[in-house]
């Protein structure tokens, strides 16, 4: 028996943070989640699987475009034509989505109840799937607790959208423990919600396949689904398959050997080319952070806009690379030893002390940012997670750190 397990399709969710610039490969990122979904369907047909398990979050919660639902419906229809059943539980995003409430799904789709656990059997292949979807977005109850014990003589699969006991960056919906899942005696647990692939357990297999397409720099590396093969004796083998069409990568380029910005650009070129070569023909969406103690530190900060332009130009040269963001994260080799060095040292120390003091008041940066005249002019969607997130202590600390680095480098540059 072959099963294909995927989750968190988030169809038509745009890729975040990719700023358009001249000659950027715009068309290659367009509707990337759709292309990844099409890849999922193609893989299902190629592998001739017996059933597809979708563990929630097909849509993005706040996305209103009904075309997305129609697209999904059509893809499910292709599987239906091939006689492949699809087992589907709704996730927190689906519960929120207007599309879910309106869309009629093809006959080959078995969508699970959202008010109690349900078991759906396919005697032809000896499969029984247990599942329960989300009735609302914030399900904080333990849904797994209501799942029945394994049915004898069948291959039992548990389909669940959960963060288990908690996963970084994911709300702890439908919490439950691994032991609890194991105790049900199922052959495979097909989980969703966590966007990073993780094999939580191998006896039995409890798997998060991750999402099928990375959507921001927080979701780097290959993305796809899990192909589950069950032998007649009931042993299970799992295999990850890539589905993504755009691959996110965060390149940290060590500029220790660079004397100036041109040297840095060469180092960036080498790493970008290597990343592109490894991406198997996919577009690479890359964030480039230049790191290390470098002689080029001050120039990078002073010419940070030029650095961005140069790196983007390299990306255009290489092709199939979109540079999301370029940031100098270097530190200087040492503070100058020339005339006025003590003054500079004192001033830098003073600046860093002031920045540190500002940092000790956790709310100071947030207050400052939100008081700025620009802040009230920015629309809500520009602020928030992955963007200008003043309510995140981490983001504020990062901004503070960057501001300090900027000042220090400008001072050092001025001292030359």
């Amino acid at each position, binding site marked *: 028996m072959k099963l294909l397990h995927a989750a968190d399709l988030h169809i038509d969710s745009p890729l975040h943070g990719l700023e358009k610039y001249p000659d950027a490969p715009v068309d290659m990122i367009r509707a990337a989640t759709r292309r990844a979904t099409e890849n999922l369907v193609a893989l299902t047909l190629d592998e001739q699987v017996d059933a597809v398990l979708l563990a929630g979050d097909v849509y993005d919660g706040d*996305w*209103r475009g009904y*075309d997305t639902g129609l697209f999904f*419906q059509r893809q499910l229809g292709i599987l239906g034509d091939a006689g492949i059943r699809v087992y589907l539980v709704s996730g927190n995003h689906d519960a929120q989505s207007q599309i879910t409430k309106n869309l009629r799904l093809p006959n080959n789709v078995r969508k699970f109840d959202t008010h109690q656990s349900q078991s759906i059997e396919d005697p032809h292949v000896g499969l029984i799937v247990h599942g329960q979807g989300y009735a609302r977005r914030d399900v904080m109850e333990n849904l797994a607790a209501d799942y029945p014990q394994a049915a004898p003589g069948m291959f039992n699969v548990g389909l669940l959208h959960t963060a288990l006991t908690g996963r970084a960056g994911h709300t702890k919906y439908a919490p439950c423990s691994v032991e609890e899942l194991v105790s049900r005696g199922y052959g495979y647990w097909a989980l969703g919600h966590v966007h990073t692939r993780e094999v939580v357990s191998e006896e039995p297999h409890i798997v998060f396949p991750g999402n099928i397409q990375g959507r921001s720099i927080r979701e780097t590396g290959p993305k796809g689904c899990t192909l589950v093969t069950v032998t007649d004796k009931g042993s299970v083998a799992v295999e990850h398959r890539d589905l993504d069409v755009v691959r996110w990568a965060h390149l940290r380029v060590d500029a220790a050997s660079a004397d100036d910005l041109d040297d840095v650009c060469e180092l960036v070129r080498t790493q970008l080319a290597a990343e592109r070569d490894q991406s198997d023909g996919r577009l690479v969406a890359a964030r480039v952070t230049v790191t290390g103690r470098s002689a080029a530190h001050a120039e990078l900060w002073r010419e940070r806009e030029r650095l961005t332009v140069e790196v983007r130009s390299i990306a255009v040269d290489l092709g199939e690379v979109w540079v999301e963001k370029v940031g100098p994260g270097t530190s200087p080799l040492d503070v100058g030893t020339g005339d006025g060095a003590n003054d500079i040292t004192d001033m830098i120390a003073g600046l860093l002390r002031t920045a540190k003091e500002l940092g000790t008041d956790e709310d100071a940066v947030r207050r400052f940012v939100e008081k700025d005249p620009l802040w009230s002019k920015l629309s809500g969607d520009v602020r928030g997670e992955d963007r200008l997130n003043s309510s995140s202590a981490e983001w504020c600390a990062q901004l503070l750190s960057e501001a*300090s680095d900027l000042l220090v480098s400008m001072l050092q540059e001025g001292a030359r």
Partner: protein
Amino acid sequence: MRLDRLDLVKYGRFTDHVLDFSAPGVHLVVGPNEAGKSTMRNAVTDLLYGIPARTTYGYLHGMQDLRIGALLRASDGSELEIVRLKKIKDPLRTVGDKVLDPRELQSILAGVTKDDFTDVFAIDHEELRAGGAALLAGKGDLAKALFESRSSAQLTTLLARLREEHSQLYVPRGRIPVLNAAIGPEGSLSQARRELDEQILRPETYRESERAVDDATKQYEGISEDLKRARAEQSRLTRIKQAYAGMEQRRQLLEERAQLLAAGPLVAGDVGYRYDTLRSERREAETILRGFVDDVREVEDELREHNPDLAVLAVAETITVLHADANGVEKAEKAGLKAARSADELRGQASSRLARLRPDASRAPEVETVAPTLRARVGEMINEQTVLATELGAARKQVKSRNRALDAELAKLPADTEPVDHAPLAAVVKAVPSSLSSQILALEKQYTVAQAKLAKARKRYARFALPEDVGDLTVPGAEEIAAYRKRIDDTDKAVARCGERVALRTTELAGHRRDLENFLRQDPPPSETDLAASRAHRQELWGQLHSGLVDPHSASTAPLPVSEYETAVAASDETVDRMRRDAQRMAERSQLEEAVEKTERLLSEAQEEHKVTVEDRQALETRWTELWTPSGLPVPAVEAATDLLTALQTLREQTDERDALLLTLDSDRAAANAHATRLREALADAGYSAPPEPASLNELIEATSAFHTTLAETAKKRARITAAAENLRNELTDAQSEVTGLETELADWDEKWKRQLADNQLTGTPAQVAESLSELDEIARLHADALRFQEQADEADNQVSTFTSRLDQALADAGRPPLTTPDRRYAVVRSLKEYLDRQSASQDEITRLTDRLATLRGKLESARNNRAEADKSVAVMLAEGLMHYEHELVEAIERTDAIRGLDKQLKAVENSLAGAGVGIAQLEQEVADHDPDELTALIADLDARILQLEGDLGTRAAGLARCKNTLEQMNGSDAAAIAADAVEEQRAGIVHHAHDYLRLRLAEQILLKSIETYRQENQAPVLRKAQHIFTRITHGEYPELVDDTDADGKAVLRARRGSGPLVDVEDMSEGTRDQLYLALRLASLDRYADEGRAMPLLLDDVLMTFDDGRTGAGLSLLDEMADRFQVIVFTHHEHIGRIAQDALAAGRIHVHDLVPASER
């Protein structure tokens, strides 16, 4: 340092003027303007730091004669008496005119530069105010002392840069900056959002489209239903109309059918068919019957023709067996004859071979086979002999082979007799550090990198045209350059200031002159000059007139100027009168003239000052050039000098780095050369010629290692050959021993053989003995074979006899003649068999014919039965139809067939009517119900209705198609997703720029706080001190000074009045402001004292705007400071002396009067 005495020997307007400043307390030098107070202040500066080349104080004594002397007291109490001359060479002298080492003076100055002295210690009122103005502007010396270190200036510059950068991204209420343009209602993000909004398909829109399709479908189906009904009705009526003709035909057929039924009885459905079948069967049975009677008769005739021999058939089995055996017996008979011949032949061969082997034998030729033990023993001995002989041969070969191998191995030994010791070579190679070469390579690489780095730096600094060797360049220090740069800046400012002043005075003068000219143009009143001129003219005329009146006989013949005199007197009187009358205008004129005069003077002073500052500037340039002369470098622009120093520093560091690498590299190379030499020597000692120069160390090591390996291998080879030869010798000895042993064993065998022959009465060689034993065995075998052949011949004879007896018996039983010749036995058997076969065939034919006859008789009987059955069936039919004769049956069958034809026609008509889709009964009813004419009208109405419905249906179908098309266009397009991507791209751009902006703004915030903190930390002591002084001077009116920052982050100073508000400096009165400046100035002195660098404080008219109270307070403060700093106050206000004497204790105030030059 203190100035105990100042000797103005020849300086400015002073000549041998001595001032004693040694007493403690405040020294007050009082003198009116132009008395030389400023000269004295400058004299102190020139004394300590040299008289400038272009001084203005040489106007009285000449430049070369200028001379200032002084008794100086260092902070440790030591004294130094010096004389300063205006000379380039040795300007410092002792009192005895001996050259004084400048370092003595330098040490007493404790590093206080001329600029520091003139800026901090020797100041006048103007400088005090200029410092105040600079303070307000956040610049200048005083501000520097208070707020602006070099560092905070950098911070301020940085602040300006940050603001410039973030203003390029966003400004409140701006339109141009990137973010302003992007986030507005017409910005790119809003635009992209609108496009997305247009592309979004909402679920409710889709539902509406679905509903529209449903509605249109329902409407379409409704009309479609109506149309269907109308068509059905039309179809029904048309059907009725069309059914009239069919129904008439049906009626006629039914009538015809009824007539036939009335004509007579009918038969059952299959009677006709059955009757036809029976008639055919009856005819066929009669034909067959006749055929079978003929056949029976024919078979009976054939039977009578057959009569077989029963006697022979009785012994058929015996004959068949004999016939079967005959071939085998005949073959056995022939084989028996052949075996008898072979037995005879073998017996003959055995006899003749035995006779040859044993001629003397008298016995019959039966020979027993040789005893197996003897034959085995003889064979073993022969084998033993063969093995021994073979082994002996092999052992002998081995001896020869080992001999040859030993010779060959010995031949391989190297020719040299004395092997070379290779150990020293290994030692010398081992002595070379393994990393030396790689270290040299690494160093060379590092050196190349350092060289490239240096070249890169040189290229970067090519604009300075620096020489190759920058190590020994004597260049000015950074401090010197900074100081010089500051002086240049100050001088430039002074030039500009003086230039401005000249321009101002020139403008003022032009204005005054214009006013005066205007005044004079309008009948100006006479001036004192006019009056004087008029009086002088009158006096002159009076002189002429007086001499003529006193001495009428004078030689002069000219008439007396009486009338001119009278005119002149009148004119003078008129002038006086006018002066009296126009006193007001006179005063006005006088003021105008004074203003012109004063402005001319001021202009002249300003021009002079400007000239001096320009000269100072030129002098500074000259000095700048001189500063760089020792370096031999092209003189850099002042602003590029710091960069040049940085370049030099960089080049020096990089050169040092390179040289250090070169040093290490040279050292390693030397070590490598030493090792190379040792390697060469070791090779030479070992008798090997080293690789020619310039072989590298690695090559030498390789060569030495290779040679060492060669030597080691040679030694190993020698040892290996020697060991091999020894082995071969041992093997040779073993082989020789084996030969001897085998020879002994062979001799033993000979003995045993001889004994064996004797024991068995055998002779001959082992081969001959073996051959004899084989021959005996062969003879015995021939005898045995002869016996076996004889047994076969006897067996064949027995078979033939038995066969012949059986044949005789069979002939007798069959009644056949007996065997006359035994040789014919086989021919007789075959003939008898042929006869038997013929009789058997005749018997078989009789059996077959008998069976056939029985079969034919059965069939004949069956045919007769069939004919009877048919007759019986016809009779039954007649009975069933209640008929008596067969023709009645035939007629009934014909009627039945006719009715059947009518029924078919009826069926066809009714089928045709049934095409209308309703039953005949219903059709009959419908036809009966409708009138044909009415039907036509109804059908026409229905046609019209159908036409209308079809039109409506078309319209609805088009509407439905439109709705469906709309719905189908909502097909899951990705247009909205693509638009969302575009929105995200715009949003990412805004996030990017906004992040940059916020970073810059936060950096600005950090910087502002840092500047504030920096000031608070670094300037607070000075401010505290200034606050103390200011409070004292103002008698507590201003108890607090606040070092504040304005909105631009710039330092500002404010004072708190009482416990009330903060007052900006520009809002203070002139006097208070001066007092504040003095307080700040005095406060900044403490650090000099703390550093042991106190200098005399020369304050020139700085108290001029103070009221008496504050002057007293100020002097009192100065007195308090006087023990740390020598205080010398210059003033032109005599009352200050009085105030001082009131305010200060006796002995703490020392007044020095200066006599003005005009009174000297």
